[in-house]
């Protein structure tokens, strides 16, 4: 048994860094605080690579399967005798893999940000938030129990809120951050309810005992049924709701495009590589339950994933804001991962989808971060993020151009780039499980290739727009991360994932199925081709097409009006038809009742003042009547 105790620093370091930069940041020099943050993250990155090495290659396996190792664990809050929230570190293939992803991308982004955010107001605040995010994300990844995951889940939520709203004087940014937080919060409510139901039935939060094949969750799958689904299924669906929110799946995807209001490095880190895949990670973490005990829930996962990826891909084809295009492509790719999980089985070769999903998560983190950082470099250069205001940038930004191209090819699934392998695995899994879903994903592959290259061509080729000042290549601090990530996304495909990250820890053989690979590559090429024709040089084709499919274009351009639906619900239903009436009711009915009591007292007191008429004889009359009536009452009526 290897001692992983040092991994505590993976959590502590960024937290301390956050406290340092948050409390004393404004006293430090911006440069220094940036360096501090980056250095801290560098250390963590090193630590996690060491951890990965030790875990995968030196930790002993039990009959060939990687074990779940509790590096350390402590009770944080005792709830009931057997329910307690722990804070700890759980190491297993996926968490270690996520450690790599998070630290790597985060480190890159840190370096990149030093250049990108140079001279921004609140530089140190930015790095403080980044450290907070890294802390939360790592905590989420290594969570030993579902409640710890929920805790850090909320924390990543808030740090994303803070980072999206980083330019807090910009109303759009404020709105976006608010939207992101509330939408995900709503989803998290589902997550919480799921946790409550689950823990009520299993009496534990702990992942290991939850997911162990002999654990209460899987063995006692029965329980009271509601609408034909077992309690467990319901709880898993609720839990998945949280994942849907974080991973911007339909119908909770609306926050993701707006989240692009944040600084581009943030988009790269949070809204492309790490936080948004938390949902996928959640499902993967609970995978045995989904797969063995709640297959219906797993189907929900699959279909939601597929639909979201298709929707996103269609929308992405018509967006003009490059970051939004990338955002939708992120959503689409995550849809892939969800689908892969959804179509996967548990154990051995059935777990192909699971492996593929994790694989894709890994590669996607690389190339999507690369894309975003590239986009950042471009925006940095032209001070706009509308592709209509770009064109012919390839000669100004050679490095960015190269890396961006690599990334596009990767995401389009062109071999031998990493994207090809992961996507191929997913398609294979889908094909074996469900033809319909396969078809959808197949189409999405084509669309992906198309919109990515639409983006690529209209930025780097297309019409030469005259810029106010000639764009220039980004500084080295920004280009180096690009290059590193490019290398990563080129070679990541050759990592033998099926040996390392599998549903049950047992390595298995995976191979390229030509029957899937060839068509997928083909459709990718077709997509690229169409994009080439339409956007290589500026032509009238796009407009004519747009005119031809006016309505579908309009719908897609307006993201199928989901936002509008939401605004309707919030503004009209909640504000106008619930809150306002309640406020009114409270002020006028309830409070009115209270006041009316006083009023009634006054009124009565005014009405009965006639008794006190000042007429002596009336007094005498009342006196005598009182005496007599009292006598009658007590003698005859009420004896």
């Amino acid at each position: 048994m290897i001692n992983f105790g040092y991994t505590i620093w993976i959590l502590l370091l960024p937290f301390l860094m956050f406290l340092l930069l948050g409390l004393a940041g404004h006293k430090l020099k911006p440069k220094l605080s940036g360096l501090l943050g980056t250095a801290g993250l560098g250390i963590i990155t090193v630590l996690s690579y060491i951890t990965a090495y030790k875990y995968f290659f030196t930790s002993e396996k039990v009959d060939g399967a990687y074990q779940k190792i509790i590096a350390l664990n402590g009770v944080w809050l005792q709830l009931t005798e057997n329910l307690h929230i722990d804070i700890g570190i759980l190491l297993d293939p996926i968490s270690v893999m996520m450690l790599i992803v998070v630290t790597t991308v985060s480190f890159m982004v840190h370096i990149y940000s030093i250049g990108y955010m140079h001279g921004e107001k609140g530089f140190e605040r930015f790095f403080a938030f980044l450290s907070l995010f890294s802390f939360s994300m790592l905590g989420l990844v290594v969570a030993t129990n579902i409640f710890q995951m929920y805790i850090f889940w909320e924390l990543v939520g808030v740090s994303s809120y803070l980072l999206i709203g980083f330019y807090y004087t910009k109303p759009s940014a404020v709105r976006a951050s608010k939207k992101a937080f509330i939408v995900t919060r709503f989803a998290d409510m589902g997550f919480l309810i799921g946790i409550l139901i689950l823990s009520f039935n299993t009496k534990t939060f702990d992942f290991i005992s939850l997911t162990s094949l002999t654990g209460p969750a899987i063995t006692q799958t029965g329980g009271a049924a509601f609408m034909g689904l077992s309690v467990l299924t319901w709880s898993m669906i609720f839990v998945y709701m949280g994942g849907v929110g974080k991973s911007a799946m339909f119908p909770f995807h609306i926050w993701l495009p707006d989240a692009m209001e944040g600084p581009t490095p943030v988009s790269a880190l949070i809204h492309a590589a790490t936080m948004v895949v938390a949902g996928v990670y959640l499902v993967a973490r609970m995978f045995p339950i989904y797969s063995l005990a709640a297959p219906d829930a797993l189907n929900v996962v699959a279909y939601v994933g597929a639909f979201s990826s298709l929707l996103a891909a269609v929308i992405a084809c018509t967006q003009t804001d490059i970051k939004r295009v990338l955002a939708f492509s992120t959503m689409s790719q995550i849809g892939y991962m969800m689908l892969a999980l959804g179509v996967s089985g548990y154990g051995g070769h059935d777990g192909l989808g699971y492996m593929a999903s994790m694989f894709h998560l890994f590669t996607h983190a690389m190339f999507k971060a690369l894309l975003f950082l590239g986009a950042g470099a471009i925006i940095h250069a032209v001070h706009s993020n509308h592709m209509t205001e770009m064109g012919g940038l390839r000669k100004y930004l050679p490095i960015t151009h190269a890396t961006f191209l690599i990334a596009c090819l990767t995401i389009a699934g062109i071999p031998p780039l990493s994207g090809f392998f992961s996507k191929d695995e997913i398609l294979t899994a889908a094909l074996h499980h469900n033809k319909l879903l396969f078809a959808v994903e197949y189409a999405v592959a084509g669309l992906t290739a198309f919109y990515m290259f639409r983006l690529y061509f209209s930025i780097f080729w297309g019409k030469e727009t005259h810029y106010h000042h000639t764009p220039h290549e980004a500084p080295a601090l920004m280009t180096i991360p690009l290059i590193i990530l490019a290398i990563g996304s080129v070679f990541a495909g050759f990592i033998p994932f099926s040996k390392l990250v599998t549903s049950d820890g047992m390595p298995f053989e995976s191979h390229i199925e030509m029957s899937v690979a060839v068509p997928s590559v083909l459709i990718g090429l077709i997509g690229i081709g169409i994009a080439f024709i339409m956007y290589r040089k500026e032509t009238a084709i796009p407009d004519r097409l747009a005119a031809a499919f006016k309505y579908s274009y309009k719908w897609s351009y307006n993201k199928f009006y989901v936002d509008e639906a939401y605004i309707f619900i919030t503004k009209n239903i909640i504000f106008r038809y619930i809150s306002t009436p309640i406020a009114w009711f409270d002020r006028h009915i309830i409070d009115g009742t209270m006041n009316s009591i006083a009023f009634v007292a006054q009124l009565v007191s005014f009405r009965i003042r006639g008794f006190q008429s000042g007429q002596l004889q009336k007094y005498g009359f009342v006196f005598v009547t009182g005496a007599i009536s009292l006598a009658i009452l007590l003698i005859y009526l009420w004896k």
Partner: protein
Amino acid sequence: MITGVPVQYFLILATLMFFAGVYGFLTRRNLITMLMATELILNSVNINFMAFNRYLYPQKMEGMFFSLFVIAVAASEAAVAIAIIINIYRRFATINVEDVNQMKF
């Protein structure tokens, strides 16, 4: 023993006097008359006392004494009342009880 006059007669008389007094108190507008009405009430009580004493408990004289005291007290009460009524007359230039209602409600 007063022959042929049963006690009921006295009681009935007393009761009539009592309610006559009460009626007078409630209806007569003149303060003096009202005072007299109260005297009527007190006297009805005296009759009661005497009658009871004489007929039912002749061996003890409590009723008699009580009525004596009542008479005395009534006199003093009248004295004070009359004095105040005179003052009323000074102030209000009337002794009509209905005009003496400055304080009300």
